[in-house]
């Protein structure tokens, strides 16, 4: 059994946990206390195919391409939250985009297959709590082959 979607999301959680000074790494946790900051939360992404426009006689169990859009939120609370988020973003991008396990074994990018990993962008959000609080929401695109016979 191979579930690439789950493999990607599980690997992302491992990756964000390696970011220096990150106090907690979680998946789909929507409520966290300040004691866990800085925190990185991996949110399972929506995904889509182009199969609605493919109504040929192709057997339904043939491989198809998936575009999955997970979101990773980095949250921090400190007077220097802007600089901290910039640093954490840099470490996040570097780790996700260059991770060997993701690129070679799971998504199979470049010469390893027809998968792809893209950083789509991010949005920031700030507010006052005990100190200045900031969150950075980064979106990624993972293109991978879904092979129903492997599920």
């Amino acid at each position, binding site marked *: 059994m191979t579930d690439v979607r789950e493999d990607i999301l599980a690997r992302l959680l491992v990756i964000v946990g390696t970011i220096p000074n990150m106090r907690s790494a979680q998946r789909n*946790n*929507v*409520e*966290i*206390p*300040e004691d866990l*900051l800085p*925190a990185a*939360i991996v*949110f399972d992404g929506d995904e889509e195919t182009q199969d609605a426009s493919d109504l040929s006689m192709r057997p339904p169990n043939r491989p198809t391409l998936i575009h999955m859009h997970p*979101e990773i*939120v980095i*949250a921090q*609370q400190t*007077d220097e939250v802007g600089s901290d988020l910039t640093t954490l973003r840099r470490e996040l991008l570097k780790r996700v985009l260059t991770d060997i396990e993701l690129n070679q074994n799971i998504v199979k990018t470049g010469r390893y297959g027809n998968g792809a990993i893209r950083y789509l962008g991010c949005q920031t*959000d700030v*507010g*006052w*709590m*005990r*100190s*200045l*609080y900031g*969150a950075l*929401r980064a979106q990624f695109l993972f293109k991978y082959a879904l092979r129903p016979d492997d599920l």
Partner: protein
Amino acid sequence: MSHDYSALLYDPVYAELGVSATLTAGAMAAVEITVIDDTRSKGHTSSNLETRSVGPGVYVRIPELTAKGIARSAYEGALLTFSGRNWIVRSHEIRGSPNGEDLGEVRLFLKAGA
């Protein structure tokens, strides 16, 4: 206005609910004041994520601050210590009073200090 809101309202309330605090504004010597702790739970929602913390703050009587030489221009950046924690005043809000805003309260918005 025949009613003295300081004597009738603020002073009794501060005598009951207030706690001692030390305020240090700029280069001035620290002064002892009475504050009412207004720290509340506070959350921030960003996308799916809600982070929970507190919004620290206090109420202070403006006449007490004025009597101790603390002008409004000195509020921001002042160091405030009470109930075992250190804070820095990051902003303030004048609360007004039927006797005039200078005889009312100010709400000091705080951030964590060293």
